[in-house]
């Protein structure tokens, strides 16, 4: 038989065994408590759906058509009261510290009822990821601490994340592109901080967030080497909101225009910059910036997959209900063979989509952003130590420079590029799979239901409007497919070049 060296050799060929089936090696390493926790999360989501989301979703959508200026402040307050904005903030920062993969199951549940409402809850975690992935523990402690406080006082404190600009959408997702692009949001270094000028567009929840993670560039000609991440508080002088977009779907969740005019951001609100990065790594800043982007979207794209799976499931559930109660030619639809097949296909899509986000989460849990949190000893330690311990012993440490340096080294210096690629590639793969499946199922449901499917009060047309967005944000599915190629395929082909296509 094969020697162990031969086995390793065989398994390192393309596709590398450790990249192709992530659940197989990683599932046994998962702390058991995660299952119990995830069950609880799903039960909470289902309760919220019954008590809040389902009774409101269609009325709210209608209301946003009647009143295009609608802002979801009531909904945000409700979600805050339900504790959703701190559920996935680690306990060292004062949050409830639910395991990160459980958020995907949560997103599927809420997304199966209303993607807009799920976005009102979920986009905040894009902001949280932007904060945490920066490795800046001092600022993370401060901002996330405010979120926790906001929950206690009943004044919601949400975080938005702003990277997209009028002239640069796809370009800001990728350092290879951004230097060729037309970014215009400028951060000028001044005594004690930065002065920002520029505009950001399509920023989800901008109007109703307290903090915005803002990315700007010191040198607009070399953005990949001069990216700065800044925490901007709503109300800061020089920071204002333009309109919010008139969207096709997900209308309860505003997409805002953010305007910065000589907006001063002090040094203690700088999240990420070349100077800071140099303190913990000698790696080229451009590489660190791409890694930072990858950490954020690598963690959030599997979540978008789960949103898509949620919509796919919601569409399936509505179609199933329709087919079980409607007759065609005197026979219940559900008893027509083609309907059974259609429903089975939709069910299959949901199941495959769920597998996709599960795999991508395994990648992140064991080789990505939150791998430390998922190590069994760390997991149980964080789970069972009393909160007072974190508040009194750990919290002061987070303020120290050495803490940021350690996080920086862990996240940016001591990681393997192949792990990074695996996480980023799987995140994109899941994002494309889940969102395409979501669109597909919504289309199938509308078709199956005929004229009943066209009515807003039947729910499925709204899902079709809502789901289309998921193929666009967090990088278009085109960009994400190219990222799958870049991360999971191109490394095997030395002559492959991505984003360098001849004109």
């Amino acid at each position, binding site marked *: 038989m094969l020697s162990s060296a031969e086995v390793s050799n065989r398994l390192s060929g393309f596709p590398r065994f450790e990249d192709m089936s992530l659940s197989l090696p990683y599932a046994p390493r998962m702390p058991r408590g995660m299952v119990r926790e995830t069950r609880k999360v799903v039960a909470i989501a289902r309760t919220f759906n019954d008590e809040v989301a389902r009774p409101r979703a269609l009325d709210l959508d209608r209301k946003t058509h009647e009143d295009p200026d609608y802002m979801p402040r009531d909904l945000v307050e409700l979600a805050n009261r339900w504790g959703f904005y701190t559920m996935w903030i680690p306990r060292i920062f004062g949050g409830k510290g639910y395991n990160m993969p459980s958020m995907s199951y949560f997103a599927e549940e809420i997304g199966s009822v209303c993607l807009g409402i799920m976005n009102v809850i979920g986009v905040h975690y894009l902001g949280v990821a932007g904060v945490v992935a920066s490795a800046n523990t001092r600022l993370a402690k401060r901002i996330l601490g405010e979120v926790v406080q906001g929950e206690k006082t009943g004044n919601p404190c949400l975080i938005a994340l702003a990277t997209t600009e009028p002239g640069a959408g796809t370009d800001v997702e990728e350092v290879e592109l951004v230097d060729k692009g037309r970014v215009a949001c400028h951060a000028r270094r001044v005594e004690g901080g930065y002065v920002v000028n520029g505009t950001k*567009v399509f920023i989800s929840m901008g109007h109703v967030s307290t903090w915005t993670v803002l990315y700007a560039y010191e040198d607009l000609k070399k953005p990949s080497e001069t990216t700065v991440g800044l925490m901007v508080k709503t109300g800061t002088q020089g920071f204002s909101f333009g309109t919010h977009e*008139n969207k096709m779907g997900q209308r309860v969740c505003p997409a805002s225009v953010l305007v910065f005019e000589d907006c001063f951001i002090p040094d203690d609100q700088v999240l990420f910059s070349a100077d800071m990065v140099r303190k913990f790594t000698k790696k080229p800043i451009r590489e660190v910036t791409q890694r930072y982007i990858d950490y954020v979207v690598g963690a959030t794209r599997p979540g978008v997959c789960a949103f898509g799976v949620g919509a796919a499931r919601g569409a399936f559930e509505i179609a199933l209900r329709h087919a079980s109660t409607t007759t065609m030619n005197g026979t219940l639809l559900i008893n027509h063979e083609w309907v059974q097949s259609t429903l089975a296909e939709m069910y299959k899509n949901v199941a495959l989509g769920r597998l996709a986000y599960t795999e991508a989460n395994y990648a992140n849990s064991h080789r990505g952003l939150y791998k430390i949190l998922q190590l069994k000893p760390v997991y149980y330690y964080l789970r069972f130590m009393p909160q007072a311990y974190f508040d009194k012993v750990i919290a002061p440490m987070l303020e120290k420079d050495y803490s940021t340096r350690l996080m920086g080294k862990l996240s940016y210096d001591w990681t393997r590029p192949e792990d990074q690629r695996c996480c980023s590639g799987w995140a994109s793969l899941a994002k494309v799979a889940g969102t395409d499946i979501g669109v597909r199922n919504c289309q199938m449901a509308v078709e199956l239901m005929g004229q009943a499917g066209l009515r807003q009060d039947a729910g499925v*047309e709204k899902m079709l409007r809502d789901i289309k967005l998921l193929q666009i944000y967090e990088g278009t599915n085109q960009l994400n497919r190219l990222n799958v190629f870049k991360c999971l395929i191109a490394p095997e082909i030395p002559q492959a070049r991505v984003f360098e296509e001849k004109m």
Partner: protein
Amino acid sequence: MLSSFKGDLKPFEELARSFAAKELAGKTEGHDRYPFGEFFHDVLDKACEAGFLGIMLPGDLGGTGGSIGTLCVVLGALCRADSSPGGIVFTNALVQEILLAADARDIAGEIFGKASSAGDFLVAFPSYANPAHQDNLPEYRRSGRGYSLTGPVDLLVLGGLARRAIIPARTGSGHQCSFFLVDLDHKGVLKSEPVFTLGMHACPAVDIRFDGVRARIVGEEGKGDEYFDRVSPALHVAAAAMNAGIMRGSLDEALAYARERFQGGREIIRWSEVSMLLAGMAVKADVAEMCVTLACQALEQGKAGWSSRCTASALHIHEIACEVVTDGIQVLGGNGYMKDYGQEKRFRDARQVQALLGSVPARKLDLIGKVAGI
């Protein structure tokens, strides 16, 4: 495309194009706000003046006397800009064709012969259903020398605007439906608010309940399905022409945007991934127009055995239209999702148009039933 084969259609196409450029372009978002904004009565009046509300109706009955080709070039040109007026033109044409198929020229003459405004011309019809596939049609019974209707009709297109409707109904026991002319101002007619639907907001529909409403038979009793079947192939093609127009509009906007929008240091059309998307859209838009062109010619020549081909190509066009409008949004990225551009509306409208004349699966089964003779 059709007008390059049939020169006599050119003036109609030109007329519809200039109408669209003047009355629709740049205003579609406002028109589409209905029922939360104003209804575009002024546009409809002008469409009526242009003769769009009676394209296939013979001249002696107050119509324009055009062919299926005429209807298709007008629908294509209108829907390229905005499909809602297309939906209104379609519904009126469907009603008129049914009246003609039923040889109810007297009724047609009474309605359209004296019509002088859009309000007189409009007749409501449940355009999203094939009555033969519907289990819950209103019931009719004889009442004195006429008939009376009782029961619900969902999504009666133009029901909130028109004074009259053509309604399919059955007796309590019979399978075959019959068509009736109903006065919607009758006191036994209960109307909902306009139903908020996926697309074509300015071609609105209402849910209706009839309670012993007086009705006048259209053609012969029990022949409704036959009439509907007879007019279906042409109307399927007309609906397909609508979606072909929507596809063309989507491609226009995507191409223009891709030429202007820069990402990664070049116009996005110069990324082959985007070019491929556009190429796919162009292939489908051209195929759709060719199908409509050939279908119209076959219909006009009354070619035997072509009706199922017309229906088949219509089904195909709707399917590819729904793909095109999805990609049409995608080419514009985030902007494609916003009402400032036309793509999101086309995404919704194409699905709504696809649902005209009954659900897709039912139409497919119907088609194969006819082809296979079972």
